[in-house]
């Protein structure tokens, strides 16, 4: 049962084939068995999960028919959960028991989903391999010598290994889509503003967006039905009606115009990945879509612009970690400056410190114009590139990552790591919706296909992804977890 999609579990629960308590117990057992290998969870909430499952079963008996009622999920440890430790993968918050719930957490709770625990992540969501976590790296269930991608690596590995039915993640430059690609699951980043950021620990405020990691596009639609919507607690949350994302999943793709970005099929792209994507595009042609090459001429500047905007915003967002009101404080500070410097140097890991330094530099006197303002201008160029492309096509499809999951410790140089997000990062700068779905395997490792939609075109992207999953079974492939020990 645990390998099923959330949609399938939803109907099994509705039919009474299984209770939420039974299902929750099954996941908890699997977590107990495999988490030591994967390190996907930082916190497992056994007791409260079973209690929530019990409540879900009672609600169902009382006539509640909410689609995700009793379905077990995991939250990335970036979402504040009242009464449960919320670490953001950092020593800085290793002891932080959040006194309130993120809106996303609140909404899943109201929908009756069962929270199994909190998943591991790159520290403050800064990383593309899940190696920067204070709680140790997460391992890829397809090959535990390899990384699951990052920063939502714990959520991706947990979904891929059936340690939960579905999970939440956040995506600032690719942090949902790239781990989804590496772990062979579906990962969806909605348009900026579609999902509330209240209670989601900030990395880069103008780029961060929460979204689902799931076993299918249909599951992502079910999750989006819960997550999306206006939240008055977040000024950047958009006041647009929420569609029923499941309603249009089966719409025909006849006449769909797919844009193939020239720049995403250039040097650096692995041959097997390229082949898998080209094969997938043929599937779409069979479904009645037409392909058209499009240009994203400024795409190559997206990583540069991103590594100004994101660190600059992060440098300010992370100033609150000062050892005064919560979180880590160094031992016996001799004076105020010592408290600040040692608390922050001991509380943050190397990558986080590096980005704070870069952001501080980019904003400092004399450099603001050359860096921050320049990056904002590039940001507009990148958005315009997408707008121009969308004048001609409905969706842009390419690879999520140039290659499949790499080995732990393989990329020690930050710049090399940053270039991992070359295909995904522009989407965050432009605030557009993007999804990664499984589209093949190379040497037993999953390949992700990346689709970018128009502003608030969530429903269409999910429809396009779902139609592919009706024709193929890549999203049904499972890692052979546990066989190696």
């Amino acid at each position, binding site marked *: 049962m645990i390998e099923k999609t959330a949609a399938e579990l939803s109907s099994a629960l509705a039919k009474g084939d299984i209770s939420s308590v039974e299902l929750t117990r099954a996941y908890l057992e699997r977590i107990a068995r495999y988490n030591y290998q994967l390190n996907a969870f930082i916190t497992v909430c056994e007791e409260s999960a079973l209690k929530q499952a019990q409540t879900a079963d009672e609600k169902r008996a009382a006539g509640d028919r909410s689609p995700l009622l009793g379905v077990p999920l995991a939250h990335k440890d970036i979402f504040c959960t009242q009464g449960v430790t919320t670490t953001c993968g950092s020593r800085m918050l290793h002891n932080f028991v959040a006194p309130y719930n993120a809106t996303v957490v609140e909404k899943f709770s109201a929908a009756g989903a069962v929270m199994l625990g909190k998943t591991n992540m790159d520290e403050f969501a800064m990383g593309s391999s899940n190696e920067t976590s204070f709680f140790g790296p997460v391992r890829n269930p397809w090959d535990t010598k390899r990384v699951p991608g990052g920063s939502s690596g714990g959520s991706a590995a947990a979904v891929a290994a059936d340690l939960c039915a579905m999970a939440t993640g956040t995506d600032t430059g690719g942090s949902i889509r790239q781990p989804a690609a590496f772990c062979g699951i579906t990962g969806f980043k909605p348009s*900026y503003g579609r999902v509330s950021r209240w209670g989601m620990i900030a990395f880069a405020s103008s780029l961060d967006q929460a979204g689902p990691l799931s076993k299918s596009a249909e599951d992502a639609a079910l999750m989006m039905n819960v997550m999306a919507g206006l939240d008055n607690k977040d*000024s950047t949350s958009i006041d647009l009606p929420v569609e029923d994302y499941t309603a249009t999943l089966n719409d025909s793709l006849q006449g769909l115009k797919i844009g193939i970005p020239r720049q995403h099929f250039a040097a650096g792209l692995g041959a097997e990945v390229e082949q898998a994507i080209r094969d997938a595009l043929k599937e779409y042609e069979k479904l009645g879509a037409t392909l058209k090459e499009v240009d994203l001429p400024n795409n190559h500047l997206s990583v540069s612009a991103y590594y100004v905007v994101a660190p600059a915003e992060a440098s300010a967002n992370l100033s609150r970690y000062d050892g005064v009101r919560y979180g880590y404080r160094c031992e016996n500070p001799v004076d105020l400056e010592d408290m600040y410097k040692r608390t922050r140097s001991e509380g943050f890991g190397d990558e986080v410190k590096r980005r704070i330094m870069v952001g501080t530099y980019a904003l400092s006197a004399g450099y603001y114009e050359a860096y921050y303002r320049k990056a904002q201008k590039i940001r507009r160029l990148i958005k315009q590139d997408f707008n121009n492309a969308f004048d001609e096509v409905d969706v842009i499809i390419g690879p999520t990552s140039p290659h499949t999951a790499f080995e732990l410790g393989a990329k020690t140089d930050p710049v090399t790591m940053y270039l991992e997000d070359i295909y995904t990062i522009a989407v965050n700068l432009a605030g557009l919706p993007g999804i990664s779905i499984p589209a093949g395997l190379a040497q037993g490792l999953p390949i992700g296909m990346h689709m970018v939609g128009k502003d608030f075109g969530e429903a269409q992207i999910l429809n396009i992804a779902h139609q592919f999953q009706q024709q193929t079974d890549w999203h049904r492939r499972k890692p052979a977890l546990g066989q190696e020990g």
Partner: protein
Amino acid sequence: MALDKSEVEKIAHLARLHISAAEADEVTSRITDILALIDQMQSVDTDAVEPLAHPLEVVQRLRADEVTEENRRDELQTLAPEAQDGLYLVPQVLE
């Protein structure tokens, strides 16, 4: 743009980070690499381009002036490394 160690020290101080002598070289060279990546931006002319601060070009919502929060001091101060008599304690602030 290459950084020298004194600039790194200055930035570290602004960001209230301590960089030990042992780390200084490595940190300096890493940040120099990142700045080289960033400097690729300079290859494009953006004189005529308006900066984009935010992907959402919409406007701020306003909140009615109402008190919606209750006093939760005692609960919230359990999170603090050091608190006494309702105050958060820190090493002496010199003014």
